[in-house]
């Protein structure tokens, strides 16, 4: 819902219309100039940010805000070239957006910034310069993440040397750059720690001090099998566990323990019959979790091994306690990205980079609720509060 308040200083003008012909009618009061909508200070858990790389016009990246309950388009942010996603502050009081700009739009000097947006006015309130090295890739959640207490924003760089830019959100300053040779992306594991995934299937376990500098950086033993069944980068976090899924539909767990990062249970999304029928997970944002019901959602389709990025028309739901599928949700349209809201009456959002329609389902019953048309150009990642 929207509240509309007068933003400008102009007083309301009342005009009375006098016609020369004898038309009698009610007096018209002109709409005041300068009225700008604002959003409530507190986001609804059923809002969704639809991030959009605008692949056909990549200098015009966008993030679009939709209310999942009403289907109403609430507003948007314009976010520059090769846009990945917004990152919502843990307390909801700021929106962080790592952005890239070229001085002449499609050429010229490149600058990278983290823009800070006011979540109620959807306008910039600050900007933090960062090294112009931000990786431009098919958007992943792990391109930019906050550490668990929200103190540090981590941004993946690729030049092609790999590193992580650390921004201190408390002082709103660039804190430093951490080399992560051979390892990509940032998966937070605590208030002062994250891991990156390395090309050999191991993890780089990084711990920070309170200034955001490296206090330890360890290359773990191999956690994933890169050669025969690689996991995708599209992991999801549930408590102290990260869940990743492989091309072939195996779930790999990474557990955050006091002893460090450990490999947890490994199980398959598929029965033997389903594997023979070529069912597999696919998509761009292919997994979602719902913590209080302990559920994992996965976009599924049928196709050969090279279809690991293909969208699907089904979302399979798993009980994470029993590692068993409990539901198959049929979607009206193929989806490449899903997200489930955190609350106890969760919505399931479904989008696809090849469609401008956002679909909304009841995440528990799987019932289709509504569609929202004309959301973006090439929607990528769905971010909810």
């Amino acid at each position, binding site marked *: 819902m929207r509240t509309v308040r007068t933003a400008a200083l102009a007083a309301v003008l009342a005009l009375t219309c006098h016609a020369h012909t004898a038309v009698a009618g009610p007096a018209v009061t002109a709409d005041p100039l300068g009225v700008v909508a604002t959003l409530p200070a507190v986001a609804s858990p059923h809002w969704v940010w639809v991030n959009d*790389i605008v*692949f*056909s*016009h*990549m*200098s015009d990246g966008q993030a679009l805000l939709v209310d999942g309950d009403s289907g109403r388009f609430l507003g948007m942010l314009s976010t520059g*070239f*090769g846009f990945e996603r917004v990152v919502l502050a843990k307390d909801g009081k700021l929106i962080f957006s790592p952005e890239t700009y*070229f001085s002449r*739009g*499609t*050429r*010229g000097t*490149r600058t990278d910034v983290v823009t800070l947006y006011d979540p109620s006015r959807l306008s910039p309130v600050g900007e933090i310069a960062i090294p*112009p090295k931000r*990786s*431009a*890739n*098919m958007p*992943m959640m792990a391109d930019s993440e906050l550490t668990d207490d929200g103190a540090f924003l981590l941004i993946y760089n*690729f*030049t*092609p040397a*790999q590193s992580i830019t650390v921004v201190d959100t408390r002082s709103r300053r660039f804190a430093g750059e951490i080399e992560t040779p051979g*390892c*990509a*992306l940032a998966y937070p594991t605590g208030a002062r720690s994250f891991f*990156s*995934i*390395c*090309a050999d299937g191991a993890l780089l376990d990084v711990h920070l001090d309170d200034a955001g500098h490296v206090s330890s950086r360890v290359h773990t033993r191999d956690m994933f099998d*890169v050669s025969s069944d*690689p*996991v*995708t*980068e599209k992991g999801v976090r549930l408590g102290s566990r990260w869940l990743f899924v492989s091309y072939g539909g195996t779930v790999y767990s990474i557990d955050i323990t006091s002893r460090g990062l450990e490999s947890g249970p490994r199980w398959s999304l598929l029965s033997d019959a389903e594997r023979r*029928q*070529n069912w597999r997970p696919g998509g*761009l944002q292919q997994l979602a979790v719902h913590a209080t019901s302990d559920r994992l959602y996965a976009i599924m*389709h*049928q*196709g*050969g091994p*090279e*279809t*690991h*990025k*293909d*969208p699907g*028309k089904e979302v399979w739901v798993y009980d994470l306690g029993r590692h068993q599928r409990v539901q198959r949700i049929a979607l*009206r*349209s*193929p989806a490449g990205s899903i997200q489930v809201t955190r609350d106890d009456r969760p919505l399931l959002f479904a989008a*696809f*980079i*090849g*469609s401008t329609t956002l679909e909304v389902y009841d995440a528990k019953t799987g019932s289709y609720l509504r569609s929202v048309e004309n959301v973006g*150009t*090439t929607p990528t990642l769905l971010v909810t509060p």
Partner: protein
Amino acid sequence: MARRTSRRGLLGSLGALLVGVGALPLLPVARGAEKPAKPGKTEADHQDAKQDETSCHYWRHCAIDGYLCGCCGGSASACPPGTVQSPVTWVGTCHNPADGLDYVISYNDCCGKSSCGRCLCNRNERDMPLYVPFRSNDYDWCTGSSVANIPYHCSTARVLARAT
């Protein structure tokens, strides 16, 4: 870089036409408009297009991700006028059914203008996630080089050598 939906395997011949020729800036064909995918349907079903370098089914495009430079004023190996070819990229292999051989393919991006917008194509044979960069088509490789660190325009697929 980039992904898209219109592709091989899931498109009927109409879809292949849209991918190969489009006069309009192409957005991916919505999957809902296509015939449902048959499990196991492969590139073998698109023999005609395999030697057409403006087609998504072109044999060299087995792991390409983006707009085909052949539709953008360049070719499968040359950049369109006014763009810069990024020397930094990833290199894979593709199989050419015409001679039965595997070839080493370098997917250099052309950079410096906004997206070409024609012939969007994404295939992922032997493509790896971002954490194996030299096998990953999901990077905008324009940004990986100082001479081409400017917007992505289209993708080439240069043959480097016979793989075996």
